[in-house]
Each structure stands twice: as structure tokens, then as C-alpha cells.
């Protein structure tokens, strides 16, 4: 069993599976519309210093997400 952590915690370049999105329905819906939802595999393309956004790849898309949102995305590291 691997650990469940916020998206902010996994290293750049690693992949993980989204377990749940802990935000309110607003954040939840916007992320789902972009294709980020429980069960989706994401790869962290880029992490920035301190408070900057994180870029993830999911399927054929890349999306930049503010750090606060990333803290609400719980993932389980794969591999």
C-alpha cells in the first residue's frame, strides 16, 4: 500500500493516481471539466518555487494548477 498525499508532495517527474479532490464543489467541478477526477493518472511536469503553480499532464493534456488547489488534490503514488 502506498501513501496518500496531496499533489504538492510528490516529486517533479513522478506519476500518481488521483484518489479524491477535497475541495468544495466549485473546485471539484472545474477540475472534473478539465478531466482531473478520481481515478485519473497524472504526471507532475513542473513544480515551481514556494507558492507558484504546478503543471500536471493527464491524458493528452497539460494543466497548470494553483498551489492551493493542488493541496486539495489527494493522490496515491504509483510505481
Amino acid at each position: 500500500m502506498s501513501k496518500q498525499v496531496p499533489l504538492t508532495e510528490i516529486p517533479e517527474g513522478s506519476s500518481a493516481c488521483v484518489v479524491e479532490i477535497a475541495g468544495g464543489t466549485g473546485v471539484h467541478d472545474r477540475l472534473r471539466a478539465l478531466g482531473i477526477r478520481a481515478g485519473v493518472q497524472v504526471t507532475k511536469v513542473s513544480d515551481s518555487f514556494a507558492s507558484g503553480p504546478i503543471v500536471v499532464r493527464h491524458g493528452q493534456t497539460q494543466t497548470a494548477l494553483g498551489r492551493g488547489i493542488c493541496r486539495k488534490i489527494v493522490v496515491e503514488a504509483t510505481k
Partner: protein
Amino acid sequence: MKRILLMGNPNVGKSAVFSRLTGLHAISSNYPGTTVEFVQGRMRIGDEEALLIDVPGAYGLEATCKAEEVALEMLVGADAVIDVADATNLERSLHLTLHLIEQDVPLVVALNIWDDAKHRGISIDVPRLEKELRVPVVPTVAVTGEGISELVARLPEAANPDTPPRSEDERWLEAGRVLNKVQTLEHRHHTLLEVLGDASVRPATGLPIAAGVLFLAFVVIRMIGENLIGFVLEPLFNTLWLPVLERMSAAMDPEGFLHTILLGSLVNGQIDFVQSFGVLSTGLFVVFGMVLPYVFAFYAILGFLEDFGYLPRLAVLLDTLMHRLGLHGWAVIPMLLGFGCNVPGIMATRVLENPRERLIAATLVSVAVPCASLQAMMWGVLGPHGARYVALVYAALFVAWVIIGRLLNHVLKGESPELILEIPPYRMPSVRTIAQKLWLRMRGFLKEAMPFVLLGVLAVNMLDYVGAFDAIAAVAAPLFDRVLGLPSEAGLAIVVGILRKDVAVGMLGALQLTPKQLVVSVTVLAMTFPCIATFVVLIKELGVPSMLKSVGIMLLSSLLMGAALNVIL
């Protein structure tokens, strides 16, 4: 007449399909959200004419943002929908397609960006996809026009298979199921563009790249602008237009009213395009000979960066900085557009989520972002004294930008929302779309700016002729003298700046000021009143109360900055 909607996810090329179908041109770029308002045009289907509506991009029909609300409202009563899907991102496109199929409206799918999908090793079984969806599917490449005629030919086949409504999760599952049946991925190595794409979004490599890109853009814009002026426009004005004006001048009394208004005053017995200040001499020269070349160069470079897909990456890199100013990274779009002309810059604040952000962004654009006209004049007036003086003005504007943003972020209630932004892949832009977009923007600039410049010059000449300026100058003199260290004539220029900033900077050029005085007055001018056109847009976009706030900040900050420069320099 039939009403046909063009729908799809953001950034799948709807606007490009639209311009192919209608022959009208809508501005498209390689980033999401270019179309915030809907655009409509007429198209032919066989012998029939139909109304085609380009609906803002939506990820779903749930209305999670303004653009999606608009999309949803328009769906009611439509005769057919052309669903533009992205072949390189089929799963997400299918999600919307499935949602549309559940609605009560006939549908055709245009599987766009087909060429890029092939390059990226994605193959899609189109007949199979048609069978799964039970609606016509046509592969298209909107930028080249491939597949468009087939799309039109198959429009009458638009179908609405009977489908029970699904929940969001069921829809994603179904999209995944269909995807697995129709799409095969060929494994291949990252392309150079993909490697570059990742490198330019990671801070360690991205920030140096951003600095390089912006510096290069600046240099290229200056180069194109200067060469167009020096080798094309000045010679044209001197050989073709000057003889006409000279003949007119010879036929008139040089001190007379008409001569002063139309041709201006003679400098050393000659008509001088920069200093004479007539409507037909300086007025036309300012528009075509000084400003237009820079506007052209700016929009050419911006268009390339937009279509290449660079701007969302810049937004990610600058997100942290922008948050300090109460904005998020995407606010770089209005800022960058503002460097061309403040009017589209302020209109682009619509990409931001809430009124607080829009007020901050619009204020920052109108106070601290110099438009192409203004920059052309800054270089024209200060350039001869040395590039470092021009740099001083840019530095002062940047400082003002940061301070005002931080203050507003501190004072205004609320928080800046977080960035959620799709990063499109880099794509080699097509010359045709860039040229089209450039043409649209140039036409927009001429329509917006030219009347104001000509009217501005006309009004200044009239007021000068009746002596109104001497009265204003007398009243304003103490303020200008004590606080800003400027002669009272410079006050005139700043008052004229209400009409058109670039005209005003031009007036300063004729005043024989010291470089220091020029830096102070150009900075004050750049920060104070936006031109009339910007003013109108501020009212339209923000409403009168917010506009007044914005203008108050503008006046106060420019005076403070002018005074500070006067003390420091």
C-alpha cells in the same frame, strides 16, 4: 433561417472552423478563452443560407464559468450543432460530445487538428467512432481548410440518437470506453517541440527562456518598426505627400486660419512632419509614419507567440509575481495586449474571473502599461538624448505597476483566485492565420485611433488659435513648476494628453526641455489620462464608479511619481 451552433472545448480551433465556414474572420489563438463573446456569421449549405454562431469554448454543459453559461443558453432552440473535437485530446472532447448527444439537438462532429494527431502518433478509427456515437464524424484541419467541404456536405445528416441522460461520472466512463475502442497510440519519442514545451514551463529553465523571449521580442519589434519608418514610410511621406502639402501651402496664407489648422506652422519656412502640427501634416504622420509601423511589428510578434502557444507558459511562470498584485498569471494577457493598445488590453480583462481582478488589471493597464503609440513617441522624444532616458521611463512605469498593484491588492477586499489553466502544446503557427489576425488588429487600430489623433490635432490647433492654452497654462503653472520642475508649457501637453497621449508627447518634443524634464513629463503623461478611447472602454468594462476609482488612482500616482522623479534625478 436555420441557426447552427459551433461548439467545443476551449482551444480546439472553433474560431478557425468558423472563419472557414463563413469567410468571416474571428481572432483565434493557441490558448483557451479567445472567444468570450459569441460571434455570428452566415454560411451556405447547398442552396440554403444558415446562421452560424461561434459559441465560447466550454468543457462541459454544467456552466462552471461565464463562457459555459453563455454556451448553455444558446443551445436552446438551435437547429443543429457542429461539435468541434480535438483529435489530439479525444477523451475530453468526447465528454462534451456525449453531453451534447444527450440534449435534444442534431449533431455533427468535426474531428479537428487531425494533422497534429497524426504527427503525434495518435490514430483514430473514424468509421468506428461514427458507429459508437451514431452521428457523422468528419476529420478536419481548419487552419488549412482540409475536410471543411465534407463537413458542410454532411451537415444535413446531423443526427440526434436517442440517449438517456447520464451522470458526469457515467459520461467520463463512456468517453473512456469509446476512446479505447477507436484510438490507438503509437509509442514514440518526445518531439523537440514537446521538450521545449516542458523546458519553458519549469522555472529553472523557463525563467531564463522567458527573459530571452521577451528581450528578443522587444529587439525585433524595434527593428521592424525602425526599418519600416526609415526605409518605407518616411521616404513615402517625403516623396509623395510632401509635394502635395507644399502646393497647398503655396496657395494659402501661411499665417491664416486654414493653414494653421490643416498644415500647421512652417518650421524654417518648411512643412515639418513632426513639428508643424497640422491635421494633414503632423496628424497623418503620427498615425501612419510613427505609430502604425510599431503597431504592425508588435502585433506580428504577439500573433506568433499566441499561435505558437507560448503565452500560457508565461502565465504559469509569472503567476507568483502576479499574485502579489492581486491577480493570477493569466492576467499577463491583458498586460501584454496593452503594450499594443490599451483598448484591447482592457477588454481582455474579461478573461479574469471577478470584478476585483478586473479593476486591478484594468487600472494597471491604463496607468502603467505604455501602448505602442506612446512607446513610439517616448523613443521619438527621448531617444535622441540617449536610450538610458527611455529606460528610465520604462523603469518608472514598472515601479508604478508593482506599487499600485500591491496597494490595490492590500486595500481591495477579497482574494485573488487560483490559476486553473490548460497549457496547449506548442504548434507551428500557420502564416495565413497570423497574417489574418494581424490584418484584423491593424484595421481595428486604424478605426479606433486615427479619428482620435486627427480630432486631437484639430482640437489643439483650434484651442491654440483662440488662446485658450495660455489661460490654462497660467493656472497650472505653479503646480508644474514647484512639484514637477516643468515649465508651464509642458502643462499644456499634459492637458492635451486627455485627448491623445501620443499627440501630447509630440508637443513636448518642440519645447526644448532638458532630458530630466523630458523624463519627468513623459512619465507623468504616460501614467495620467489614458486617451479618450481607453477612457470610453474603461467606462464600458468597469462601470462609472470603478472607472472613477481607476482615474483617481491614475491622477494621484502620476503626480507622485513625477514629483519623486523630479527629486531623485
